[in-house]
């Protein structure tokens, strides 16, 4: 081989990686744009404005930086549809004390540097920001911490609760894992030998932390830990390890592109443990091609239907919780083509939280960044009608929710998730 060409190849590969790692260096515009500051509070009926606030037009501009393309778009699209539906319903009901919420959308494709650029391009005109993903949100974290804007992550990283600018919804990964493992082993009595197959990144590390805490709490026997790399296509080694060690309950910390092959590989090797899917591992489309009951089953549907539990982000579609009927009515009106989706439900719950925070800020008479942050922190526990665990942002560093929702994969249930337990907490 010609060494010159080898050098060129290496330079090109390094160049591509370098390009993908670069962000822009300019600082963001932190000034209000459409907003105009006026008045001093609700007592006089006036509201202090800020970036993204149009007090004259009574409009609050927010931005969702999400993944509408790329590998995570199957998750980002229904979540965005859910949030939009909730906001449309809020606006149709008069908005938040007369203010309409207008959400702009930026697609970052789940690429951190694109996320940073989208953030910088929109933060000056946004009162709040939604941010999809853990690595992407971490990429903009120093920026929003500096600017004091409230950001709602669509991610469940355990560190979010320590950042006052963040308004997460749901149970952090580590807490969720601990709750789920203890529930299946100690309450459902499905075995004490546990194993974990996890992707070797921040998401996996967070799950592993919860897994170890569950084992440390006693009563569980950690028989195998099997990491894999994002992009792996063969999981024989991981499955073989779990099988040979006799893991009875296997925690699957993966994305759907890996969770389905893991289960399929295990089934082909004659290994059928109880699976506990961490939230991001599940997607309706790994059961049928289009995610509906009438869709063509995937090759792993049979194995999934045997004994797979899911740590759900949100209440299973159509489940018997107080907020479900309203959500389904809103979905029918504003997103009629939406198929049953856990991510839609979760996005809808996030939209409700945005509405609650902004309503509180309007009532406080302060829609400045500091005012919205103060509103979030003083909101107290928000009742989401059981659609998602109710967050409480007053806890100061503790997880905003600790009560998990556990569902079981069931081929006869719309959305394929049958409710098993909610409000599950560990020991």
């Amino acid at each position, binding site marked *: 081989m010609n060494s010159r060409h080898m050098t060129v190849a290496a330079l090109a590969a390094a160049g591509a990686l370098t390009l993908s790692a670069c962000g822009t260096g300019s600082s963001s515009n932190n000034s209000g744009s459409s907003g105009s500051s006026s008045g001093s509070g609700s007592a006089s009926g006036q509201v202090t404005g800020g970036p993204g606030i149009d007090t004259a037009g009574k409009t609050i501009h927010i931005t969702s930086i999400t993944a509408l393309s790329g590998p995570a778009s199957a998750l980002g699209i229904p979540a965005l549809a859910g949030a939009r539906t909730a906001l449309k319903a809020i606006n149709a009901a008069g908005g938040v004390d007369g203010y309409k919420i207008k959400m702009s959308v930026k697609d970052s494709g789940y690429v951190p540097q694109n996320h940073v650029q989208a953030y910088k391009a929109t933060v000056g005109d946004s009162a709040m920001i939604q941010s999809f993903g853990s690595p992407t949100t971490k990429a903009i974290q120093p920026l929003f911490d500096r600017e004091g804007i409230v950001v709602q992550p669509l991610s469940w990283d355990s560190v979010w609760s320590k950042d006052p600018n963040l308004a997460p919804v749901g149970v952090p990964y580590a807490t969720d894992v601990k709750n789920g493992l203890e529930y299946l082993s100690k309450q459902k009595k499905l075995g004490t030998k546990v194993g974990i197959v996890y992707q*070797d990144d921040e998401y996996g590390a967070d799950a592993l932390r919860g897994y170890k805490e569950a084992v440390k709490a006693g009563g569980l026997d950690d028989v195998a830990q099997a*990491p894999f790399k994002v992009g792996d296509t063969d999981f024989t*080694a991981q499955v073989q390890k779990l099988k040979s060690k006799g893991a009875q309950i296997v925690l699957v910390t993966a994305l759907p*592109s890996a969770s389905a092959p893991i289960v399929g590989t295990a089934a*082909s090797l004659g290994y059928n443990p109880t699976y506990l899917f961490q939230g991001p591992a599940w997607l309706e*489309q790994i059961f049928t*091609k289009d995610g509906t009951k009438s869709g063509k089953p995937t090759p792993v549907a049979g194995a999934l239907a045997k004994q797979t539990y899911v740590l759900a982000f949100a209440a299973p579609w159509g489940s018997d919780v107080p907020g479900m009927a309203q959500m389904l009515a809103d979905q029918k009106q504003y997103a009629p083509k939406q198929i049953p989706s856990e991510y839609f439900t979760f996005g809808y719950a996030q939209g409700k939280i945005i509405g609650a925070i902004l309503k509180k800020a309007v009532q406080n008479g302060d829609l400045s960044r500091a005012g919205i942050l103060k509103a979030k922190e003083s909101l107290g526990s928000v009742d989401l009608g059981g659609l998602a665990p109710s967050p409480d942002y007053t806890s100061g560093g503790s997880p905003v929710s600790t009560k998990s929702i556990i569902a079981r994969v069931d081929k006869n249930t719309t959305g394929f998730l049958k409710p098993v337990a909610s409000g599950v907490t560990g020991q």
Partner: protein
Amino acid sequence: MTEFFQLLFSGVALGAVYSLIALGFTVIYRASRVINFSQGAFILVSAYVISWLATDKGVPFFLAVALSIVFAVAVGVAFQLLVLRHLVGRSAFVAVMVTIGASIAMTAAVSAIFGPDQKLLGDPWGSSAVHAAGITFTWVKLWSIIVVAAVLYALYLFDRHSRYGLAMRATASDHIAALAAGVPVGRVHAIAWGMAATLGTIAGMFLAGFPNSPNLGLGDASFRAFPAIILGGLESPKGAVVGGVSIGVVEILTSGYSPGWAGTNFSAVAPYIVMIAVLLAKPYGLFGSVPAERI
């Protein structure tokens, strides 16, 4: 021991797919001295086209594969004729950057056209397998090994016993001299791109087969095959196969038997350690040829 042989079989099957990808790199490099960074995109496009034809349009699976090959070859040849042909004489770096650009464009097109939803390949193998001595041999993996052997033999026949095989070797040796001798170098380049597209389609079919499915990350497998071509020697089809199988086996075995002290990601590093070790002993790869230069 059963566990070892199970992992070995999976490693050989994975390596067979890496070999197909590596062969795609090799045929283009031999003909045009271009390292084709869009090979992964061909894998991705082909898997989605097969899926679309077989599951959405009801085309019989193997006909869908054949049509996908035709499509990929058309795209590959058109890319060579319309774009790369005009870069003759420019630095290799320009051509490399163009293939990177093509890869990004093709991946974005797949995302835009087919959307984010889960796809099924529609392959006839599914989870079917044969079991012997406690080892599970899934048909999709068995076929990947068989097909690689067949493809390698076909490439050998083409290379040694066909007019264009000879032309390709002449072009690989010295494309200016080949041109002076009347070798249709442009056509040779187009054939090479067609062959690479075919190899990419076959690799895509196996990569997206059970238990996987067509997904937007499929093309990244081409980067996993990169150590294989360096290990085997970028110009050598034989080296691509030996390198591919070696890397597949190393990856799976280190994933199964990785010592705790080596960290959780040792299986990702191991192929590169093997590659560097080989390059220290044989700087042009196992089967690479040392260039002779007139001083």
